[in-house]
């Protein structure tokens, strides 16, 4: 049983996953953020690896990435920061970013190093299924890493089934066709969420993009095992207050 399956076997409703950008607001905030997120009730954490050209992200996550890069964040540094966390953090950790920096780091080395620091899953939105299957699937599997695929309202049933077949972590359902951080009318996405729910997929589904408060979180949880929040959390900590307090206040407003 992988760490996602273990989580879903213990809890399969109202799962909360939080995304943050490594190296933001300050270079060495990574571990503080991880610990406070876990302490205040996050079920799963996505660690964003900043990139100069984040195509799928809106302004808030873009800016956090720019700042993180200016602070000096790199994948190598991130792995250094994460060393020793394996015993301290118990919730599943995911690395999320774009393909290019990972290719430069070396895909095999990246996977090996990710495994060594206790990462469970990888999200690279611009790595397409064909390339995943031809070149990368085995390397990920050898390192016990689950690759998480995105689906959108435009994704066909046939393709969703294919993604369900090759996924072993969970499926990341993007709430609407958009970049991150745009306001969404969750009720307008009802038929899309219903469609996914009725497909009875073998994988659990988490809904992301546009989830920002208790209302949107609760709405998303009606249709899926849980939801993912990124932009709203970045906004909560970007002012540079006490991370522990800001995180607690933020999570209390959701859960």
């Amino acid at each position: 049983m992988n760490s996602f399956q273990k989580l879903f076997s213990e809890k399969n409703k109202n799962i909360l996953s939080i995304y943050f950008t490594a190296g933001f607001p300050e270079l060495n905030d990574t571990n503080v953020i991880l610990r406070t997120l876990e302490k205040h009730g996050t079920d799963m954490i996505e660690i964003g690896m900043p990139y100069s050209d984040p195509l799928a992200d809106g302004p808030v996550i873009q800016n956090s990435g720019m700042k993180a890069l200016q602070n000096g964040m790199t994948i190598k540094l991130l792995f250094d920061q994460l060393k020793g966390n394996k015993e301290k953090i118990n919730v599943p950790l995911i690395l999320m970013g774009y393909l290019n920096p990972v290719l430069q780091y070396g895909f095999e080395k990246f996977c090996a190093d990710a495994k060594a620091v206790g990462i469970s899953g990888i999200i690279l939105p611009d790595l397409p299924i064909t390339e995943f299957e031809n070149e990368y699937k085995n390397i990920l599997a050898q390192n016990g890493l689950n690759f998480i695929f995105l689906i959108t309202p435009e994704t066909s049933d046939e393709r969703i089934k294919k993604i369900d077949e090759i996924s072993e972590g969970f499926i990341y359902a993007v709430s609407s066709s958009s970049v991150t951080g745009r306001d969404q009318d969750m009720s307008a996405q009802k038929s899309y969420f219903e469609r996914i729910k009725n497909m009875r997929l073998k994988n659990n589904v988490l809904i992301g993009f546009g989830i920002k408060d208790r209302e949107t979180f609760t709405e998303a949880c009606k249709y899926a095992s849980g939801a993912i929040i990124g932009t709203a959390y970045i906004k909560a900590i970007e002012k540079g207050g006490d991370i522990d307090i800001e995180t607690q206040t933020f999570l209390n407003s959701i859960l």
Partner: protein
Amino acid sequence: MSSQAKYSQPDENGYYGRFGGAYVPEMLYSNVENLKENYLKIINDESFQKEFNTLLKDYAGRPTPLYYAGRLSEKYGTEIFLKREDLCHTGAHKVNNTIGQILLAERLGKKRIIAETGAGQHGVATATVCALKNLECIVYMGEKDIARQAPNVARMKMLGAKVVPAVSGSKTLKDATNEAIRDWINNPNDTYYLIGSVVGPHPYPDMVARFQSVISDEIRKQLKEKKGTELPGYVIACVGGGSNAAGAFYHFMEDESVQLIAVEAAGLGVESGMSAATTQLGTVGVLHGSKSYVMQTEDGQVVEPHSISAGLDYPGIGPMHANLFATKRAKFMNATDDEAVAAAFELTKLEGIIPALESAHALAVLGKIKFKKDDIVVVNLSGRGDKDMDTYIKKLQS
């Protein structure tokens, strides 16, 4: 020719050798897939070809002349022909592609056209065809480029386009491209992304190359008429993303006796840290949806290039060109800012033609190649210099 088209056409997944592909997030998958499934069917259709060719002829002004440049030939001791893309409507080869893609967008039922632009030439060419077809047009342009290319911004606005400043990242072409892609993600149903170069996810590089291939198709016919042979010794073109070079090389790629010379912008010098010579400075990576050479840091962050020519100021290169470079089918040379400006003044003085700064890079290598007296050398004069008058005037005054 298709059975032996090993350089000019990608495989079914969009790869030229090991370069290309479609590295797009799922939000763009259905749009890109729809395009991939339909583009060949649509552009090979008789009604499409008829309308495309009529517009190229009557609207864009094709065929463009292949001009024997006598005084330039005398200077370099060889026979130099200029392919006069500078005489196209809107002032550059860019319109060949925008005419093709707007007809495609129309047939796909799209109502809203988005584009990226650096110097503004592709933006103007896009705004032009959108006016022609009465379609909404939004052009993303780096905030810095808007400030330094005011005349083209004014042209786009007069043509009815909305020019949106890209304020992210370095605020230039790379970021304008990011913003256009984000717009496309946010508007998947009604919007068509009209890419200006042979970059982006498959099928864009192949599609743009096909629309630009009219350049080399004409060169072959014109050379036959003037010299009794379809094949020159050399074809020289500048390369940023690489659309004019793709068009000028296209029908010569499989004729290996023809030397293809791609000229990149060296900026202040290849090793100066202020350059845009992607094949010399780049490593293999993924940018804007395809795998190619990318100028980047060791950590995979894309770096900002420099060239005096905004049209060559791009940290990547089309996957077709990456393959021509890797297989050594084309020779890659480069010219500095100063060399390009000098070449522009030389052409103006000898032939009475003011070239675009981009095209001047292609002219700038003429003195670096040992030609024989009877070599036939074709230089693709991709655009005219009107837009660069500010730069030229400054040089005149200094």
